């Protein structure tokens, strides 16, 4: 509007002005510098660019007024704080900002590899998924594999090499080490000991052997609480060598578990769960499914899945194994113990196993003594299982020793004064986990030079002179073997966050070959036989995540001679109280104690969080007079003193229906004293009761009430939940299913008819012609393992809230696994698991009650939460009959410097999935059907101008599920997997009579009881 004639600037005169200037040499513009009259006028005039009103004609005036009015509204627009995003100046190869990359690697659990694929956003790993090609994973994960990501960013990890708790350096450590080793050269290392966990890593084993070659008198010991000592001893006893036992559950029609939780605790459990449930899937026309018998003390996931479950004390199992062997005509000698426990039950089970030769299998638990394992080998041989449902391979461990004995030898040497330098590698934390009678901590003090290599500054680190922080598996190169021997290269995704060294780097330093981890691995695998062109082989192996054809060789092993003569004298069961030690289902031997995801993860059967307890049956609690006879639930939370000999421990009681009578189970792993802020001071430490003689169970327990109460937290209100008269998780038998595949019974309400409504509105999500998302959850194959819960937490940035907040009923999990007890027998009820995410109701009760439309429906049928619209009235949650909505009562996300758990929030922020909003305080959240994954798939599909294909969108829970119990997809596509699942006759809707029309439906659990055993 203003005609402003630009004068060409005279640069020379400007420069000269600038030279001659005194005072502050700031200038606003070139015009000012030029000192033009024009500029002076410009400065003097307050509104230089306005046209005077007199210059305007009527039209211009109206135009101005109109536009001013229109623009006035814009002043309401807020200017949001601006952050700068800087693009890569030099883009790393393959990285496209905003597009995650996935790398194959492997995680070791108890020393055994599980192949995983890890998602990385601009170099920041955020999510772990199973590797579909890896035999131990088949694409699935368990809760630990998911939660390992949290450990990577755990702010409480050790961050520096320390010498007697004072920060030091790698060089100082090397200097101190070489000094310590120098003194040993003369004695060829007689004073040197290595203590590792289970080692399956070929490279680490080679490095250790190299070290032992250099110091031939040095010794290598192994200790890991989770080590399957009894399995090795049993194999040695029966077959003459510690073969590795691999089960082929896919070929088993009848399985008997003798105190074994093969779905959860074995190195191959993720794979086993898939194989086993594949034999149980029920679809239209299914007439046969496999059958599982479980005899166990503590109710486990395996017991919950079993068609017949028999509670028995751990010490009774041996006698049961004997009688089963006898029942099959195996010679077990004349002094074999007999059991009085349910003879018809056992006889019927044996008959059933025997009727399926080559298709039946008996699985002994790792806690059972070697004799039980030996007997089971004999039984399996008799059943024709060997080579079919169970195969023996060469040991996977580099050195298959029995760990308790190995640790015992080490301590004996220390006591004898033979040990001058001890290197503890790998975070097994023996000061916390070693059997109580070893007095490990006291003994350790006698060693002059002690080095601990672990990821946390834990109880053992505190006792050692040097602590060298270990790397997380995503930070360093390594390798490991899976349960069947398949080797994987563990490739890192990120530089170590803190000063830390991998075990390989530490060993390389001890061997005086200080190479980077990458070189160590490559050198090692060049020797181990990277076939053909090594680089090609290396790339391909890294890409696929495992080494082709590296599975351990099958070996033929048979019972050597007369087993009866070799079986040790059975320990009589005794009639007193028995204590069982088990690894905690979420904390393991205690190593996961500082992982907030696992602390807040409800234990599979008890649903306890942030604590452990002395678990016992209602009958035992009544007998111990911990509660009135008619109210066993009142015993939960009572403090008792457990005494085993002169060892004592105070612990709260948890009453669990189905637990074996006269038996108490305690989980080790809690009661940590030296770990991060999350792990310390939660729960009770049963290790002091656990001796090398009886590491897994022991008689002679005394329980005396102390009269105190303790707040045990279970996410299930009261400990025993029945469904009342509500058939929420439906269970039928296969017989019923064959007779009447529809679940409805005469008096049962069917889905209500479509009522005509006064307020008919266009049914947009029904009439929608695009994708209609839906989910099917198969209760038949859900084993209740919690993998989906942690996977969802990792995918959707779900915060942990801490014990106090959980005690107020504010846990945040978007998917929960409900556990119901069924049946009239309090001492042996059936257990049913039911995962409950948001149902995505077509007529969602949450939507009409939201006053601000913060929860709405998408055309594709998603019930959406608009976080930044939510004001937090919580009415939606009140009105949700499934109670799947979660509210941020406080600021749970890592927004501030310190989070709700007191941890430094900065590293944990790196954990977040950048595609999912981090919710602030005061807003509601819930399962979104992983809408970010749907949208990612949609973008890909749109680029190719096609529809989203079935299986292209996989929700986090579906992807993690070891048993493929969760199926997600488009129900508008009649051929999609989810549509096929929903067409099953035993598909049903949760709370159908409310007419909410959920998009998530369930398939009933179909049990396969033996008609010869009465169930009630």
């Amino acid at each position, binding site marked *: 509007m203003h005609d402003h004639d630009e004068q060409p600037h005279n640069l020379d005169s400007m420069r000269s002005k600038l030279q001659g200037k005194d005072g502050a040499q700031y200038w606003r513009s070139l015009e000012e510098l030029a000192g033009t009259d024009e500029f002076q006028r410009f400065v003097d005039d307050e509104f230089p660019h306005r046209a005077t009103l007199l210059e305007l004609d009527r039209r211009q005036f109206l135009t101005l007024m109109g536009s001013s009015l229109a623009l006035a509204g814009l002043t309401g627009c807020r200017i949001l704080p601006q952050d700068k995003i800087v693009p890569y100046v030099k883009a790393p190869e393959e990285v496209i900002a905003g597009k995650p990359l996935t790398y194959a690697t492997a995680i070791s659990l108890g020393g055994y590899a599980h192949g995983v694929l890890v998602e990385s956003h601009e170099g920041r790993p955020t999510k772990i998924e199973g590797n579909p090609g890896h035999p131990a994973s088949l694409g699935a994960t368990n809760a630990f594999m998911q939660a390992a990501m949290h450990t990577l960013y755990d702010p409480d990890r050790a961050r520096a090499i320390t010498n007697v708790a004072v920060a030091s350096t790698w060089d100082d450590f090397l200097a101190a080490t070489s000094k310590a080793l120098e003194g040993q050269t003369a004695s060829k290392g007689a004073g040197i000991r290595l203590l590792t966990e289970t080692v399956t890593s070929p490279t680490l084993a080679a490095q250790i052997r190299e070290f032992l070659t250099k110091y031939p008198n040095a010794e290598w010991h192994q200790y890991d609480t989770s080590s399957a000592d009894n399995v090795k001893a049993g194999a040695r006893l029966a077959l003459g060598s510690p073969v590795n036992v691999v089960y082929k559950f896919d070929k088993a029609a009848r399985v008997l578990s003798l105190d074994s939780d093969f779905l959860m605790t074995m190195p191959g459990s993720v794979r086993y769960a898939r194989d086993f449930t594949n034999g149980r899937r029920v679809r239209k026309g299914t007439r046969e499914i496999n059958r599982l018998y479980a005899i166990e003390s503590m109710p486990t996931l395996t017991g919950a899945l079993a068609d017949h479950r028999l509670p028995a004390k751990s010490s009774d199992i041996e006698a049961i194994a004997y009688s089963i062997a006898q029942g099959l005509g195996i010679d077990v000698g004349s002094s074999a113990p007999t059991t009085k426990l349910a003879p018809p039950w056992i006889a019927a089970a044996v008959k059933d196993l025997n009727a399926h030769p080559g298709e039946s299998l008996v699985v002994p638990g790792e806690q059972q003594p070697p004799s039980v394992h030996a007997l089971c080998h004999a039984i399996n041989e008799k059943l024709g299982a060997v080579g079919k449902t169970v195969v023996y391979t060469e040991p996977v461990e580099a050195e298959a020793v029995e760990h308790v004995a190995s640790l015992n030898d080490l301590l004996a040497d220390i006591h004898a004064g033979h040990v001058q330098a001890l290197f503890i590698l790998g975070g097994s934390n023996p000061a916390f986990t070693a059997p109580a009678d070893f007095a490990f901590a006291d003994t350790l003090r006698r060693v002059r030079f002690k080095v601990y290599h672990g990821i946390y500054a834990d109880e053992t680190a505190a006792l050692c002179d040097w602590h060298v922080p270990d790397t997380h598996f995503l930070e360093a190169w390594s390798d490991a073997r899976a349960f069947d021997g398949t080797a994987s290269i563990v490739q890192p995704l990120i530089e170590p966050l803190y000063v830390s060294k991998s075990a390989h780097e530490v060993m390389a330093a001890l061997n005086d070959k200080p190479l980077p981890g990458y070189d160590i691995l490559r050198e090692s695998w060049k020797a181990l036989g990277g076939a053909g062109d090594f680089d090609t082989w290396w790339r391909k192996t890294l890409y696929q995540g495992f080494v082709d054809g590296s599975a351990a060789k099958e070996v033929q092993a048979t019972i050597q001679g007369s087993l009866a003569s070799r079986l040790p004298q059975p320990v009589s069961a005794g009639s007193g109280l028995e204590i069982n030690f088990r690894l905690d289902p979420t904390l393991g031997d205690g190593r996961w104690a500082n992982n907030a995801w696992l602390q807040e993860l409800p234990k599979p059967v008890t649903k306890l969080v942030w604590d452990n307890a002395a678990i016992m049956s209602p009958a035992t609690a009544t007998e111990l007079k911990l509660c009135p006879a008619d109210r066993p639930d009142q015993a939960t939370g009572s403090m008792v003193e457990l005494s085993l000999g002169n060892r004592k421990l105070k612990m709260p009681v948890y009453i669990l229906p189905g637990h074996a009578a006269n038996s108490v189970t305690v989980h080790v792993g809690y009661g940590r004293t030296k770990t991060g802020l999350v792990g310390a001071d939660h729960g009770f430490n049963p290790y002091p009761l656990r001796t090398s003689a009886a590491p897994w169970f022991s008689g002679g327990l005394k329980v005396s009430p102390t009269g105190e109460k303790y707040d045990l937290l279970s996410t299930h209100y009261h400990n025993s939940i029945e469904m009342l008269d509500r058939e929420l998780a439906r269970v039928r038998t296969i017989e019923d299913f064959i007779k009447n595949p529809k679940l409805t019974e005469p008096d049962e309400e069917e889905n209500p008819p479509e009522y005509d409504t006064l307020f008919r509105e266009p049914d947009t999500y029904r009439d929608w012609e695009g994708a209609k998302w839906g989910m099917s959850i198969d209760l038949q194959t859900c084993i209740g393992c919690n993998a989906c819960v942690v996977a969802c937490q990792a995918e959707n940035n779900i915060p942990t809230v801490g014990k106090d*907040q959980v005690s107020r*009923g504010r846990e945040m999990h978007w998917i*929960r696994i409900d556990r119901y007890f069924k049946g009239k027998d309090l001492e042996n009820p059936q257990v049913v698991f039911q995962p409950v995410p948001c149902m995505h109701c077509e007529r969602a009760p949450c939507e009409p009650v939201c*006053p601000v439309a913060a929860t709405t429906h998408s055309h594709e049928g998603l019930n959406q939460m608009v976080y930044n619209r939510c004001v937090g009235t919580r009415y939606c949650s*009140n009105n949700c009959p499934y*109670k799947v909505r979660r509210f941020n*009562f406080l600021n749970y996300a890592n927004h501030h410097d310190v989070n709700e758990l007191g941890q430094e929030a900065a590293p944990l922020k790196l954990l977040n999935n950048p595609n999912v909003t981090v919710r602030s305080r*005061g807003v509601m959240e819930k399962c979104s059907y992983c809408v970010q994954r749907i949208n990612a798939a949609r973008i890909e599909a749109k680029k190719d101008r096609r529809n989203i294909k079935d299986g292209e969108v996989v929700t986090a829970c579906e992807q993690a599920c070891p048993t493929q119990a969760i199926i997600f997809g488009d129900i508008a596509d009649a051929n999609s997997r989810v549509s096929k699942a929903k067409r099953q006759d035993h598909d049903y809707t949760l709370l159908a009579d409310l007419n909410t029309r959920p998009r998530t439906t369930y398939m009933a659990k179909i049990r396969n009881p033996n008609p010869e055993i009465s169930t009630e």
Partner: protein
Amino acid sequence: MQNHGAEKFIGGKQTFESITTKIESVVIDQRKKHPLEWYVVFGIAFGLLQVLMLAVTYLIVRGTGIWGINIPVGWGFAIINFVWWIGIGHAGTLISAILLLMRQQWRNSINRFAEAMTLFAVMCAGIFPLIHTGRPWVAYWLMPIGPNILGMWPQFRSPLVWDVFAVTTYITVSALFWFVGLIPDFGTMRDRAKPKWLKYLFGTLAMGWRGSNQHWFRYESAYLILAGLSTPLVLSVHTIVSFDFAISIVPGWHTTIFPPYFVAGAIYAGFAMVLLLAIPIRAWYGLKDLITMKHIDWMAKFMLGTGMVVFYGYLTEAFYGYYSGNKYEMFMIHNRMTGPYAPLYWSLIVCNGLTPQILWSQRMRHSIPVVFAVSVIVSIGMWLERFIIVVTSLHRDFMPSAWGMYTPTIWDWATFLGTIGLFTFLMFLFVRFVPMINIFEMKDLLHKQEGHAISGRKEHVVVEAASAHE
């Protein structure tokens, strides 16, 4: 309502002069010594008000997590208190509007008082829906501020939005009604005030009131219109509040009986509160001649009547719970009676159902301690009723796996007691700074009682004369 009844509504030997003096002197003569009780109660109330400020500040800093609410019990004390306070307000509106339309002149001595109570109770109530939201700073999104400013409307299907309309309408109409009713009395105060600033103050509030015929005519029309507007509010506000529950699908909430049952309960609680306030104040300020035993007797009868409606509601709820045959409803009723909150349920039955039955006896209705005690019990009972409705319905609904318990925290109590402090604080200020009894309506009543009654408008001439006489 004719003379034979009216004679008991003003006690002693009263003249227009004495009535005016009795009421206005409390306000005009601020140097007059106030009863010690006023200072004590006011002091406590002021203290509680500070507690409220502290509790709300901490709430805004930390979040609603400082309360005992959780999943499944998403609503706790905040909503209980909201409904309780809103209910208390209803008696005021009923007394001033419905009884006016029904020409129940006995209301004249308590209506001002009851209206103030309404206003303050609604203020207390209004705090809760605001602060109970997770993000109170955006709670204004519930207002229909419209797409021009907020980009979208609220979601009109939600009863919480209806609530916003109901409560804002209610407080607006109540405030107007109260103020319009005060105008003639402000005129009197202006005329009687001695200090100049007080004259100006009351003069401003009197809005030029001179007591002319025209003024009286307009006043009467305006007051009647406002009474007409208020009358449906007595029914609608608590009906809509009850929709907050009834619209849902939660067993124990999803009930068609809620609107009438809530309205009756509101009036019930309101009368209890009027009595709770009137009984001490009439004693402290020597107003026993104006708020007579007859008033107390009648209000007690009102309590008895509405209490019976409420009790009938409880019985019906229980009966239909079982009669429905719906397993969730049956369980809900069973759980209320035998579950973890059963002691509270049975206390509720005792407080609201059985206790008022004592008021059948005239002797009891005439005993001030008994009526006061019953009022306290009913107030507690009505609070318990809301607790039972909100908490016991939510804590065990459809899926046993998601059941929980609700335990209030110290901050829940602080906020609740704080609003009681706010309410008492405001009420006591009102007593000192505003004529607490309607002066001109009392004169009108006196006029009728003294037997000079002539029907129709001419009364006002007399009253006006009386007013002018000052």
